[in-house]
């Protein structure tokens, strides 16, 4: 049968960000996919040439609008390692609290978008309504809603008092109740299962071979999470990666849903153990000549920072590998063989963040 080429994106109702996929289709079955990226490249890595290394914190926060806190945390940890500084214990716990809040709001945003991708509009709004509460916590505790700007080299810039921690915990209780209430609607619904179960299956071997990271990898039954490294205060908290065996779109959805609840649990643990003390140490001088790498688990997976310094205030090179960059090969390998109507659901199931990828 004759094949047809159907372009999807960069502007498409279901894609939150611009990625262009050229799909070769025979009848309704996809046989080949060619992606093209580069619509939102901003050259953020090159800005390190013209900015002080302290100012780069605000630049890397803008790599991704959704996981800004983790980008800054990853960069700060890298520089701290280079300069031989250790953030105070309280700062480490605060970093965990804010980063897990960030993971929650990112997953809730994704769960809403995923529901939207198969046309479940009311579920989309319900998840975003819950997400708004997490953003309120951000705004009340850090001052900003999404790009929170709390990290700085040597610690954090804002502190939480006891009343605020108590308020966060009470809000989280409500959020947990509401998320749980939506669970059966998303995970047990006949229609949702019809659109997601068995669509875009990635086996564990394939996932490892293609270098997949984050929930996409964990949904294929591989228990690999950068939080196991124990960065910040995570080493002192009880943590088990959430895994699913099936490797399809539904499993990826389930992993993210469970991770929202797991994040609430981790914030509770961190809030219970948070020590008193300083929130930042004073940093003087410039990072010494040399290089460092830093890894952090973002909502979408592992983010990797390579930092090279020439011993001056301005860094020589900064290289960021974001999770979507690692997950794109997996997406391209699972699309062939699927129906054209499955494309929006399967593309969204890896949670693509194109702005991150292109930096």
């Amino acid at each position: 049968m004759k094949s047809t080429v159907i372009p999807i994106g960069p502007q498409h109702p279901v894609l939150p960000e611009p990625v262009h996929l050229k799909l070769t289709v025979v009848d309704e079955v996809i046989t080949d996919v060619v992606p093209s990226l580069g619509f939102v490249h901003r050259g953020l890595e090159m800005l390190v040439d013209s900015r002080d290394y302290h100012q780069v914190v605000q630049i890397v926060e803008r790599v991704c609008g959704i996981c800004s806190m983790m980008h800054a945390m990853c960069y700060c940890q890298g520089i701290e390692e280079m300069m031989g500084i250790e953030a105070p214990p309280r700062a480490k716990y605060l970093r965990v609290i804010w980063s897990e809040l960030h993971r929650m709001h990112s997953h809730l945003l994704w769960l809403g978008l995923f529901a939207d991708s198969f046309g479940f509009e009311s579920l989309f709004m319900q998840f975003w309504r819950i997400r708004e509460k997490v953003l309120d916590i951000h705004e009340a505790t850090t001052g900003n809603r999404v790009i929170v700007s709390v990290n700085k080299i040597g610690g954090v810039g804002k502190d939480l008092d006891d009343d605020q921690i108590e308020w966060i915990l009470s809000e989280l209780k409500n959020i947990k109740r509401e998320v749980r209430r939506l669970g059966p609607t998303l995970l047990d619904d006949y229609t949702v299962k019809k659109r997601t179960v068995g669509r875009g299956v990635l086996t564990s071997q394939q996932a490892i071979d293609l270098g997949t990271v984050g929930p996409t990898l964990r949904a294929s039954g591989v228990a690999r999470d950068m939080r196991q490294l124990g960065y910040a205060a995570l080493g002192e908290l009880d943590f088990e990666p959430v895994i699913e065996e099936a490797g399809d779109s539904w499993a990826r959805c389930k992993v993210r849903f469970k991770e929202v609840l797991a994040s609430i649990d981790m914030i509770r643990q961190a809030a219970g153990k948070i020590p008193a003390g300083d929130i930042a140490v004073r940093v003087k001088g410039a990072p010494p000549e040399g290089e460092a790498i830093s890894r952090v688990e973002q909502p979408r997976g592992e983010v990797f920072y390579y930092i090279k310094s020439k011993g001056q205030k301005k860094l020589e090179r900064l290289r960021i590998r974001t999770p979507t960059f690692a997950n794109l090969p997996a997406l391209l390998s699972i699309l062939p063989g699927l129906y054209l109507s499955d494309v929006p659901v399967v593309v969204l199931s890896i949670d693509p963040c194109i702005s991150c990828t292109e930096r």
Partner: protein
Amino acid sequence: MFKMTPNILRNLITDKATRLYPFETREPWTGVRGELGIDIEKCTFCGICALKCPTGCLSVNKKEGLWICDPFVCVYCGVCVESCPKKCLYQDLVYREAADEHGKIVMKGEPPRRKKEAET
């Protein structure tokens, strides 16, 4: 139908989840990083805010006693407020409203006098 009826009844009784936004706004949270302002009388025009600003939206002219901010470039990160030695910078609890014209905020204060000038 049996599952849906209680839900429908509950939604009839409970309040709306949304607000009529431009007409009805909620109180801002305390500690929100809103629009940047300056208490120009306290300012010594040291220029640390302009040096630390990651976007370069601030500029300070010590000779003429000018503090200039481009609010369209500011990203509300609060670095300048944290680093100001005189604590004369502050952030309002509300964000800047949308504008149809590009303009800069120029504040003029008394530049610090040199030691010799102060003695005379």
